[in-house]
C-alpha cells in the first residue's frame, strides 16, 4: 500500500490523542468559550453540538491556532500546541474543514489536494528552477498521493477541473479530502452535512466512519443534524453560550434536561 493509507500505530484505540483542558477565550467582554474540556482518544469519533452561536466554531478556531486561547491547555499526543500558529498545528496533525467552504476556488482539484499534501516536504528554490531529478521525483510523488486520495473519494476524473466548478456536495467532499491530505491524526469537521440532501447525508455518515477506520484518524464533528450525530458519534459534547452543559454518550445527551432546555430555549428565542 502507499503512504497515504499507511497505518498509524494500530491497536492503540483508547490511547488519549487530543487533550484539551479549560480552554477559554473572550472577545471584548463576551466570553465566547469558557472552560472547554475534551479528551479525544485515537480513532475516537466525537460530536460537538449546541444551538447557533454556542461557540462551536470558536472551539475549532481555538484548537487550530486561528484564535489564541486566553486560558487553558491544549496538547496532541502529549505535545503542547498552545501558542502554535495555524500551520504549525496542521503540521502537528490537526486538520480541519470549514463551515462555509474555503477551498481554493481558482486552483484545480488536484492542486487543492496536492497543496495540502506538500506539508511534509521541504522544497528548494534552486532545484525548483532547475527542475532537478530530485525535484521531479518529489513532485511526482506528491501528485501520485493526491491522485490516490482523489480516487478513494471518486473524484479522480475531475482532477484538472477548478474547485469552484464542483457541485456543492463535491466541494464539501473535497474539503474533507484536502484535510486528509495533510495526514492528520485528528480531523475536525465543521458541519460537513450542511446543505446536503437526505441521501447525501446518509452517504456522508457512512463515509465519516470509513474515513475514521481507513485513515486511522480521530474525528471531532460539529453538526446540526441530530440524527447524524446521534448515529455515528461515540460521545457528544454539548455547548451553550460557550459553556459545556453536558458530555456523554448519545443516550445520555438525548435525555439530559439541560440539553433539551438549551435547544427548546433556542427555539423559543427564535420564535
Amino acid at each position, binding site marked *: 500500500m502507499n503512504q497515504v493509507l499507511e497505518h498509524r500505530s494500530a491497536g492503540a484505540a483508547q490511547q488519549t490523542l487530543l487533550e484539551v483542558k479549560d480552554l477559554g477565550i473572550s*472577545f471584548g467582554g463576551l466570553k465566547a468559550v469558557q472552560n472547554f474540556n475534551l479528551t479525544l482518544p485515537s480513532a475516537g469519533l466525537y460530536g460537538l453540538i449546541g444551538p447557533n452561536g454556542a461557540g462551536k*466554531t470558536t472551539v475549532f*478556531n481555538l484548537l487550530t491556532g*486561528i484564535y489564541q486561547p486566553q486560558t487553558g491547555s491544549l496538547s496532541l499526543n502529549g505535545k503542547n500546541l498552545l501558542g502554535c500558529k495555524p500551520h504549525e498545528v496542521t503540521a502537528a496533525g490537526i486538520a480541519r474543514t*470549514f463551515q462555509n467552504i474555503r477551498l481554493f476556488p481558482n486552483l484545480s482539484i488536484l492542486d487543492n489536494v496536492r497543496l495540502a499534501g506538500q506539508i511534509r516536504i521541504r522544497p528548494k528554490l534552486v532545484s525548483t528552477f532547475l527542475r532537478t531529478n530530485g525535484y521531479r521525483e518529489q513532485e511526482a510523488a506528491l501528485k501520485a498521493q493526491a491522485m490516490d486520495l482523489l480516487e478513494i473519494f471518486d473524484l479522480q476524473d475531475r482532477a484538472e477541473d477548478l474547485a469552484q466548478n464542483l457541485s456543492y456536495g463535491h466541494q464539501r467532499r473535497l474539503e474533507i479530502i484536502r484535510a486528509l491530505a495533510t495526514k492528520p491524526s485528528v480531523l475536525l469537521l465543521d458541519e460537513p452535512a450542511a446543505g446536503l440532501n437526505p441521501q447525501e447525508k446518509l452517504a456522508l455518515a457512512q463515509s465519516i466512519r470509513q474515513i475514521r477506520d481507513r485513515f486511522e484518524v480521530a474525528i471531532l464533528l460539529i453538526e446540526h443534524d441530530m440524527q447524524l450525530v446521534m448515529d455515528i458519534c461515540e460521545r457528544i459534547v454539548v455547548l451553550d453560550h460557550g459553556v459545556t452543559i453536558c458530555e456523554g454518550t448519545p443516550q445520555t445527551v438525548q435525555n439530559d434536561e439541560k440539553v433539551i432546555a438549551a435547544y427548546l430555549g433556542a427555539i423559543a428565542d427564535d420564535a
Partner: protein
Amino acid sequence: MADFLQTLMTALAIGSLYALIALGYTMVYGVLKFINFAHSDIVVLGAWLSYSFAIRALPLVGLDAHNPATPPPIWMTAGIFVAVLLLCSLAGFLIERLAYRPLRRAPRLNVLITAIGVSLLLQNVGQLDFVFGASPQKMPALLPNWELPIQFGQGESIRYVVLPLIDCIIFAVSGLLMLALELLIFRTKFGTALRAVSFNTDFAALMGIPVDRAISLTFMLGSALAGAAGFLYVLKFPSMNQPAHSVWVLLGLKAFVAAVVGGIGNIRGAVLGGFIIAFVEQFGAYYISSNYRDVYVFSLLILILLIKPTGLLGSPVREKV
C-alpha cells in the same frame, strides 16, 4: 519660541487641509472599503476650478485677472468657493456613478485599480490644453493680504511671529466644515443611515436604507470637502503646478496617510491624523531638515501601521472564519 510658534501655526493650517482631504478618503473607505485614489484629483480639480473662476470673475469687477490690485469683494470670493464646492461634489457623484458603482460586487482590488485608473485619467485630462493646460499658473489673490504680527521678547532679542489671515481662514473654515460633518453624521437621520451602510451594506439595504443614495451622498460630501481644501490650498500657496504634477499627488497621498494613521473609516481619526502628519512634517522640516519631509511622513505611516495595523483610532477587524 517664536520659531516654534511660527511652525506651530503653519502646521495647524496645513493640518486642517490634510484633515479636510483625509475626511473624504475615510468616508469613502467607511462605506465602500476601498482607497479612492482619485480623491486627490478632486482636490486638484477644486484648486484649478478656483483659478479658472477667479480669472474670469475678477474682470467683472474691474480688476486685473492675473494681478489684482485689491482683493475682489467678499461675495465674489464666497461665490467662487460655493461654486467650487458644488462642482466638485458633482464630479464626485459622477465618478462614483460611472466608475465605481458597476463594481459594487467586484473584488476590492479591482475597485482599487479602477480608482488608480480614474485618478490617472483625471490628472491627464486636466492637463489638456482645452481643460486646464499643462503649464503652472499663479492664483490671483482673493483675500486681503493681512498679517497679524505678534511681538516676542524685548529690545535686542525682539522677534515677530507673523500670523497670516489666510491661515486663520483655513483653520476656521476647515473647523466649521468638520463640525458640520460631525453633526451631520452623528446627529441626523442621514448620518445614521450612512453609519448603518458603513457597518454592513447588505443589512442596511434590508432595513430599507437606500444604500445607493447614501453612497452617492458620501462621495458628494467627501468631494465637496476636497474641493474646499483645493480652494484654500491655492489661496495659501498661489503658485499652482499643472494638474498632473507630482506635488498634487503627494498632497493627496499625505492626506491619505493621515486618514490611515488616524484609523481609516474613522471620522475623528482622519482629523487627528491630519494634524499629526502636518506636525511631523512641519516640525521635522524645521528642526531636522526640510529635504526629508516626505520621509518623516511615510516613516511615521509605516511605524504606526506596524504597531497598530488599523491606525490610532481604528477598531480591530477580525476576519470571520
